[in-house]
């Protein structure tokens, strides 16, 4: 990671340490922060794919779902240890991302967007239709909690698990960005032709980042399953894929910090909008439109710009 990433990282770690003191026993807030962490993990992967490598995916909810259902089915239905669910989730999501990624990443812009949209929708249908396995629209319940050394992880303990995983992935991702791999992604984003003539196997790198982002999503899915203990296809619909996209775009696709911020905003927002039930979708649309029209580089960048301006 670069020097400039050190301070935000420190802030997060400090936040994690101080957090239990601030939010004594407020289960509601803890839950929100868990969801923020889970969403942030997916958003990070998506940010690497979109912001750095310049690709697009409108179907990432599918990989999230694959992770969730893998963990859910293997632990609830087959009573296997959760580690198998996680491993299978990652493998399945990664494998499918590899298979569909190869032909899809060859496509240009809009075609890629719609292809990934289609893929996401197909998996949504599969989650709904494969009733013997997934429980269909009625969902899958009885997913056990994760345990470490006999202790069940829920509430505050689960919060720490998620955010420690998030932190580790964040460090990995920052390291990747500041390496030849990250530069290769950004080169592909800048000019595929230029990258090719510099010896970068563009197709392979695109596939690599696509699979990696799918793995992040699947890991988040497994964590999600073991937190909510009941999952249903409605959590893995097109709307969630769009929400994930919004997290990255609204926060700022250029940096992982933007994605993190966006994940926070779009985890918190539904809570406020929950009261205005009928207004919810409209609000999302309006917010997205306003950001795209007036803050196209995301909220984080807009804030930075304001701070620079006020310095002068």
């Amino acid at each position, binding site marked *: 990671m670069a020097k400039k990433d050190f301070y935000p990282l420190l802030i997060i770690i400090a936040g994690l340490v101080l957090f239990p003191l601030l939010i004594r026993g407020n289960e509601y807030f803890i839950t929100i922060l868990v969801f923020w962490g889970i969403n942030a993990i997916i958003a990070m992967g998506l940010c690497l794919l979109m912001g750095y490598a310049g690709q*697009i995916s409108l179907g990432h909810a599918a990989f999230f779902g694959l992770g969730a259902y893998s963990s859910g089915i293997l632990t609830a239905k087959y009573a296997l240890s959760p580690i198998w669910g996680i491993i299978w989730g990652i493998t399945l999501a990664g494998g499918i991302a590899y298979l569909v990624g190869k032909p899809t990443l060859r496509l240009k812009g809009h*075609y890629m967007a*719609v292809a990934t949209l289609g893929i996401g*929708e197909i998996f949504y249908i599969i989650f709904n239709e494969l009733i013997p396995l997934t429980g269909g629209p009625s969902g899958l319940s009885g997913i056990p909690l994760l345990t470490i050394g006999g202790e069940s992880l829920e509430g505050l303990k689960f919060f720490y698990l998620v955010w420690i995983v998030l932190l580790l992935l964040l460090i990995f991702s920052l390291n990747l960005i500041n390496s030849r791999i990250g530069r290769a992604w950004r080169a592909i984003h800048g000019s595929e032709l230029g990258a090719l003539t510099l010896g970068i196997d563009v197709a392979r790198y695109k596939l690599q980042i696509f699979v990696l982002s799918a793995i992040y999503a699947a890991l988040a899915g497994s964590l999600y399953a073991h937190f909510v203990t009941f999952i249903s296809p409605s959590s893995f619909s097109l709307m969630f894929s769009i929400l994930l996209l919004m997290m990255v775009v609204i926060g700022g696709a250029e940096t992982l910090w933007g994605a993190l911020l966006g994940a926070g905003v779009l985890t918190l927002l539904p809570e406020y909008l929950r009261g205005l039930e009928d207004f919810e979708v*409209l609000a999302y*649309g309006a917010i997205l439109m306003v950001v795209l029209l007036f803050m*196209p580089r995301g909220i984080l960048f807009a804030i930075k710009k304001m701070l620079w301006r006020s310095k002068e």
Partner: protein
Amino acid sequence: MDLISQLCQYLFAGLTLGSIYALVALGFSMIYGATGIINLAQGEFVMLGGLIMVFSSTVLHLPLFLAFIFTVIVVTLLGALFERLAIHPLKNASLITLIMITLAGSILFRGGAMFIWGKDPYGLPAFSGDRPWYLWGATIQPQIFWVLGITGGAVLGIGLFFSRTLTGKAMIACACNPLAARLLGINVWKLVLLSFALSAALGAIAGIIITPITLMEYDRGPMLALKGFSAAVLGGLGSSMGAVVAGFLIGLIESLGAGLISSGYKDALALLVLLIVLWLKPSGILGSAEESALKKF
């Protein structure tokens, strides 16, 4: 019902669905041709057509013909408004931003519809009554003929527009080479606006004619857009005739798939067609590979 009547049933259902997909696909094609972008809000025009028609008949108590015209005008205006407020300001933005703005539009329209009409499906009375016709052993609602007829009329109208009017020809010129078109004095921005307005109108018509059969609710848009887009790509993006033909093809595939294989996975069928076309021949069946390689998107 024996196989013949079953097939007949599926055939008519397929043609009905196909009409809607054809109209949506035509809308996609037009906007893509004029702007090079895929309008992800295309399905919402259909949804709005259906719901606003419900509004104009049941709340405004307009007679059928007037309600039809009223609805098409309103949705067309919404389409034009969308172009002016959201698309035009971003004309130089990156690809991802353009995709996202049409996505935002789609969400906004959906949210607005949910706000006004809630999540329930709404119906419309059939245009000429409910008594079904019996053809070759299949039960056919008369509304189906309205669907086919009006779709045919709309497609014919668009075809004439492109081939006979100066504006229509200008739109085709614009699709082939925007720079040359501009140099010839064609106002490209006006044509972009027109393409959105026309696509919205087509979508509205689709929504109006299909609601008596399938009802309409606020979130029908995305799936319609995906299938309509499937058809547009299958027929070769930018080719109006291809879009229409492919629309009917997808409708038939879906109907036969639902009837003969499984109804739960019927949506997945159309999506599979989309993926196969995109993966194997993105220029579509009627498009040319060389031409699409030269296009921007």
